[in-house]
Every structure is written in structure tokens, then in C-alpha cells.
């Protein structure tokens, strides 16, 4: 009898120890992503100010660092107006449909190698899914429902136009986004994001001594450019922010939204940006991999910790790129957007897939 209880409690402890790291990773991931989202809004405002020779928000806290907090408090305490002419159910569901997929997307992204803790190996990734990239694309595709629903439920011509544009744009660029990674998938031979990063930690040796990491940017330069263009369009950022074109559509799909509901659209957009930046890093810039660190002779855990930092830094670079481009380029016209997608990026992505397949066939053919 006693032995049975012992085994059961042992199993229980095992279960706890198995679940605990996952829970911690989930909470930390959630916290980090939401905080980054908040501070991304501040970064956006600060950097745009610097690019336009202004100072930017500097009133709340030192250098305006508490601004996101003040914004959050303001959003929460604003009156939550639901206009009379809207379709209530969809109107209220839309912001959630925008935010939830955005928050689901990043769980499959590996943010570091594994660490050894108390004899257990903990992978630094919330969910190690074999079809990671498909998962992200599928979840990302869901966010179009939020945009379109918001535009439709608002019962307002500007919102409707914004919603229409959003759906057309997202559908077109989802296609090119998916197609532009097919080349990379062919090269890596897996859809598991962790395996993809591990694949990129290998080296080519050039001229006898120079080692170049297998990063996706070297394997798929065209794929990278196409992916980046589609990523901008997919996250509704300038120069592709037609769904919310302020100067012609007031606010686009979120014209009728205020207080926290508006904030949710906002957070959805920024979280989507984080996910897509992290995905770009994972696919084309070696994820957590720091080149040549293997020769430094550090222990595995230290390398993993440094890797997490490297991953964050690389992602931050892409977030900066998003902001930088936004404050540089004017918005596309709608027909230009569509012709860029269907006549520019789409054929180029097809060509990329074809070329990659041909190269792989020639290179890997048994001699």
C-alpha cells in the first residue's frame, strides 16, 4: 500500500516538474511579449521623433520611459463607447479576434537552445511543434477575420472600405508569405522551427579557414527579400497600411473603436510585428545562433543564455527596421499594392521555389 502511494506521489512530482518549466516559459513569454509590445509603441514614437528632428514623448518618467504605462491607464479608464449603429456581437468580438491570434503566434518560435537544469533538459521554446511554420501561417491567417469583422460590424463606409482592403491585402500577401518560405523549407528539409535553427548552426569553410554559418540569408537571399516584403504587408505596416490609411479612411477598420478595444487592435498589430520579426530571425538569421561561439569554450548553459540574448537582439533589429521603414516610405496606392503582390512578388516567389528545387536536385543527385 505504502509503496503504491510512494509511486503515485513520485509520478505526481514528475508531472509537476514536467509542467512547471512549461508554465514558467508560458508566463515569461507572455510577459515579455506584452511588455515589448507596450515599449514598442514608445520606441515607435521616440524613433519617429528622432527621424523627424523632434524629441518625442519625454514627460512621463525619465526620458518618457513610463509613457506606455500612462497610455495603458488612459486606455483602461476611457469610457467604452459602443455606437448604436453597429452590430454588437461582431463589434465586440473583432478586437479579441485580432489580439488572440497575435498572442498565439509566437509560442512555436524557439528563442534559445536548451539548458540543463537539475538534470533535466529544458528547451527554450514554449511548444516544439513539428509543423511550426504552418502553425504560424495558419494563426496569422486568422487575424484577417478580426480586421474584416471590425470593418463590417462598424457599419460605417470608411470602416467597411478598410475591412475590404484588409481582407484583399492579407489574402494576397499570405500567399506570397507562404510561398517565399517554401524555398527555405526545401533547403532545410523540415518545417520544425527548432530543426531549422539547428540546421543554420553549421558552417561552410571558405578558403580553407574562414567559416561562414549556414544562415538562411546566404541560402535564400531572394526568398528573404520576398519574405520581408510580404511580412510588412501581412502586419499592415507602412508602406502597406492601406486598411487604416488615415488620410483617406479616417482610421480604416478601427474608426469606430475607442478605449481598450482600440488598444487591442493596436496591441494585435505590434504583437504581430514581434512574431514576424522573430520568424524572420529564425528563418534567415540563424535564430539564437551566435556565429563562431562554439570556439569560445563556454559551457552549454552559458552559450544558451547568450543565445537568448542574441535572439532578442536580432529580433530588436528587425523591429527597428519595421519602424525605420514606416517613417521613411509613403503609402502605396491600392492598385500598386495589388500589382506588386500578383505581378511582382508572387512570380518572383514561384521562380525562387523553382530555382531552389532545381539547384537542390542538381546538387543532391546521387553521382
Amino acid at each position, binding site marked *: 500500500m505504502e509503496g503504491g502511494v510512494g509511486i503515485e506521489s513520485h509520478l505526481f512530482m514528475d508531472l509537476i516538474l514536467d509542467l512547471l518549466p512549461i508554465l514558467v516559459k508560458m508566463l515569461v513569454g507572455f510577459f515579455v511579449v506584452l511588455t515589448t509590445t507596450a515599449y514598442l509603441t514608445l520606441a515607435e514614437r521616440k524613433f519617429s521623433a*528622432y527621424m523627424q528632428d523632434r524629441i518625442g514623448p519625454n514627460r512621463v518618467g525619465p526620458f518618457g520611459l513610463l509613457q506606455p504605462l500612462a497610455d495603458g491607464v488612459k486606455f483602461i479608464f476611457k469610457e467604452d463607447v459602443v455606437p448604436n449603429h453597429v452590430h454588437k456581437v461582431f463589434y465586440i468580438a473583432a478586437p479579441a479576434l485580432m489580439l488572440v491570434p497575435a498572442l498565439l503566434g509566437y509560442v512555436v518560435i524557439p528563442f534559445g537552445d536548451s539548458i540543463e537544469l537539475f538534470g533535466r533538459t529544458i528547451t527554450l521554446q514554449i511548444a516544439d511543434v513539428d509543423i511550426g511554420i504552418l502553425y504560424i501561417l495558419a494563426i496569422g491567417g486568422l487575424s484577417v477575420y478580426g480586421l474584416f469583422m471590425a470593418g463590417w460590424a462598424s457599419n460605417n463606409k470608411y470602416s467597411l472600405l478598410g475591412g475590404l482592403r484588409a481582407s484583399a491585402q492579407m489574402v494576397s500577401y499570405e500567399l506570397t508569405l507562404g510561398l517565399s518560405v517554401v524555398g527555405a523549407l526545401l533547403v532545410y528539409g523540415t518545417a520544425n522551427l527548432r530543426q531549422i535553427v539547428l540546421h543554420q548552426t553549421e558552417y561552410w569553410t571558405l578558403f580553407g579557414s574562414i567559416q561562414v554559418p549556414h544562415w538562411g540569408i546566404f541560402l535564400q537571399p531572394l526568398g528573404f527579400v520576398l519574405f520581408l516584403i510580404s511580412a510588412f504587408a501581412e502586419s499592415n505596416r507602412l508602406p502597406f497600411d492601406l486598411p487604416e490609411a488615415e488620410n483617406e479612411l479616417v482610421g480604416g477598420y478601427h474608426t469606430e473603436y475607442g478605449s481598450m478595444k482600440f488598444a487591442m487592435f493596436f496591441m494585435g498589430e505590434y504583437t504581430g510585428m514581434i512574431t514576424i520579426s522573430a520568424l524572420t530571425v529564425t528563418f534567415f538569421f540563424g535564430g539564437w545562433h551566435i556565429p563562431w561561439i562554439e570556439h569560445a569554450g563556454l559551457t552549454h548553459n552559458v552559450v544558451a543564455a547568450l543565445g537568448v540574448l542574441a535572439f532578442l537582439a536580432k529580433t530588436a533589429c528587425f523591429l527597428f527596421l519595421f519602424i525605420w521603414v514606416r517613417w521613411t*516610405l509613403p503609402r502605396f496606392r491600392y492598385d500598386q499594392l495589388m500589382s506588386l503582390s500578383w505581378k511582382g512578388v508572387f512570380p518572383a516567389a514561384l521562380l525562387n521555389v523553382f530555382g531552389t528545387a532545381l539547384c537542390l536536385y542538381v546538387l543532391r543527385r546521387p553521382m
Partner: protein
Amino acid sequence: MIVRKPQLSLTQKLYLPEILRGLMITMRHFLRRKSVTYEYPEKAKPVPANFRGLHRLIQRPTGKERCVACELCLTACPANCISMVATDPNDPNVEKFPLRYEIDTLRCIYCGFCEEACPCDAIELTPHYEQASSRREDFVHAKSRLLENNQFVPEGERISRVKTNETYLRV
């Protein structure tokens, strides 16, 4: 009208090199960090010397106003915001002086015509423009307040240097 499309070279048509050039421009500004912002409540933007702000009634050396209640400013004012009551000062040298002199700055358009019309250099628009208040009465400036408004110009410039009839300056 015939709109001719500009002839683009191949690199311009590809768009990406041009994007990179644009990005370089914003990056230059980003790194230069030369801000044009005036952090206003702490540091006001300097106004030009002829800025037309709040009015003042220029003083005589004795501290009394120079105004002789000729009502030229009142006549010139396009917004009709000056009102005055003239009276006899019981002084053989001075004919008239304003018993009451009021400017309703809520109506004033700060055109400066009053200043131009005045033959005695008795009224002037100071560079002061911070006049916020939540009560309407605060915007109606009576004579005493118009004289107090001399505080908005530097000490040495409060008394007019315009030469006028010595007799009338004695008062």
C-alpha cells in the same frame, strides 16, 4: 492637360535601391539628433522684436499713462474692442486724460492698428502672449492692468523715448 510620366531608369523601376536611399536619409536624421523642438513651458521660443502680443499703456516718468484720450486708437480698432471714458484732469497743461480705458482682448485681433494710430506713442503691443485663464473677466484689461503690463517689457524700455511736447510730459 497632358500628364507625362517621368522616364524612370531601371534602378528606379526596381524601387528597392531607391528605398535604400530613402532609408539612408532618415537614418542620417536619426543619428544626427539635432532637434528643432522647443520644450515650451520650460523654454519658450524667442519671439521677433515686432511680435504683437498683449497691450500695454506706456508710462510717463511719473508712472502715469501717456495717453491723452484722443480716441484715435478706438477709432482705428477694426474689432471695436477699445472703450474709454475721457475726462478733464483739472490741469491747465493737460486737456484730457482717460478716466477709464479698457481693452477686451477676447475681441482683439492683435492687428496693432491702435499702436499705429496713436499720436503720443502711448499704447504698444508687448511680446507677451501667455494669457490663459478660465474666467472671461480676466481678458478685459482695465487701465490699471494695462499699466501693469509694462512688466512684460524690459526695465529700460518701459518709458517711451519718443520726444513729445515737454509741457504735457510734466504731468
